């Protein structure tokens, strides 16, 4: 079996300036912190980042979380997300003209990513019809109801956080850490998984894992539970 196990530094080594990356997490919960830390250390620039939100900024002794670390390090030119109000760095970047922000309704974001990974040409959703979200998008009337065409989203890399992963890359995410960590793994050219628990192939019943290991390119152990 091909060896997918890497250190965080090795796993992110291929991420270059200008890359498009998806990062799992919802306000930091379920974000692959060791992978993000390694990327910050590597110091690439001009990233397009796709995530639910902008992570969280550093606050009173706690570090930034998830995408918040990439924003803090000035590595992001464009963020595609559904909600950015919890991270003031995004508003500041937009005001300064250093950051472009594209807002997508949360359900549409999930489906655009799923479409990207599932080989679909997009999805038709009623969400956003008649609003500014519909600007520049085609509308289709299906059986008397209007739907917007939301096109697929893909990325060069996806940074995924698993709670448990085997050495083939089969993985699951605990509780509310799932969020975007499943759909994103299907939609990126190179998928890197940071996992809390790393087990040998065959050690666990296959039912343990929600996601197939076919998506994973690299696996990095050592992800830690967030410390409050």
């Amino acid at each position, binding site marked *: 079996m091909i060896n997918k196990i890497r250190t965080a530094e090795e796993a992110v080594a291929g991420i270059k300036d200008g890359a498009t990356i998806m990062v799992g997490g*919802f306000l930091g*919960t379920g974000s692959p912190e060791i992978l993000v830390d390694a990327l910050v250390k590597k110091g690439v620039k001009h990233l397009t980042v796709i995530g639910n939100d902008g992570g969280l900024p550093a606050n009173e002794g706690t570090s930034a979380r998830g995408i918040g670390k990439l924003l803090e390090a000035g590595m992001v030119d464009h963020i595609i997300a559904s909600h950015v109000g919890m991270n003031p760095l995004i508003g500041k970047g937009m005001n300064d003209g250093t950051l472009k922000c594209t807002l997508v309704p949360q359900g549409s*974001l999930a489906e655009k990513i799923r479409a990207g990974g599932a080989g679909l040409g997009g999805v038709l959703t009623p*969400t956003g*019809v008649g609003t500014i979200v519909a600007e520049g998008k085609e509308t289709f009337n299906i059986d008397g109801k209007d739907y917007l065409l939301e096109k697929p989203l893909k990325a060069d890399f996806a940074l995924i956080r698993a709670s448990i992963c085997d050495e083939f890359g089969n993985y699951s995410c605990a509780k509310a850490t*799932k969020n975007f960590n499943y759909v994103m793994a299907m939609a990126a050219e190179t998928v890197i998984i940071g996992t809390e628990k790393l087990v040998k192939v065959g050690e666990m019943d296959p039912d343990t894992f929600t996601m197939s290991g076919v998506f994973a390119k690299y696996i990095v152990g050592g992800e830690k539970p967030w410390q409050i």
Partner: protein
Amino acid sequence: MADLKARIASRTAKEFNDGDVANLGIGLPTKVANYLPEGVHITLQSENGFTGLSGSAESGKENVDVINSGGAYVTYAPEANFFDSAMSFSIIRGGHVDATVLGAMEVDEHGNLANWIVPGKMVAGMGGAMDLVVGAKKVIIAMLHTQKGNHKILKECTLPYTALGVVDKIITEMGVMDVTPEGIVLKELHPDYTLDEIKAATGCELIISPDLKPMEEE
């Protein structure tokens, strides 16, 4: 002010039937869960990825993998189930949520809703709000009737829309209104206010229901 919000939340709680699946927005709508009538158990959907949302987590007992959509650590009910964002919004968009309760900046007599953006001000993003209001079977707006004296219930929204024609019911400290094809119908008026007062606080015509009742509270 706190009383008025409690009044709105307690009246909104009466809209639920035992067994309903509901999504409550952050802020005042979250408080609705505290006022559910005896014998009414609802399952709360949390758009970040689960059904069976319970209360806030006690300090020191947080599960770091369990947050609500506002990022706060929460607990979950015995019937809870956790899933990813695609499933979460399949539940929301697919009509599997019986009711959602949200606040609003503006609502108009066509049931149009504006609650996510004020041009020229810092944009937070729509998050899951646009999906929720098009997908939930019933959309209840629970809010203060006016914003610092300015009308929020209007003939036409002036702010960018969240969605068109989605609002079913508006519950404020002054009364309870249904959005119908004919316009906004006042069904209940709180005893603290006169008809003239609620009409003056409303920016569109208010159709008075023939069986107008006093607004129920706990």
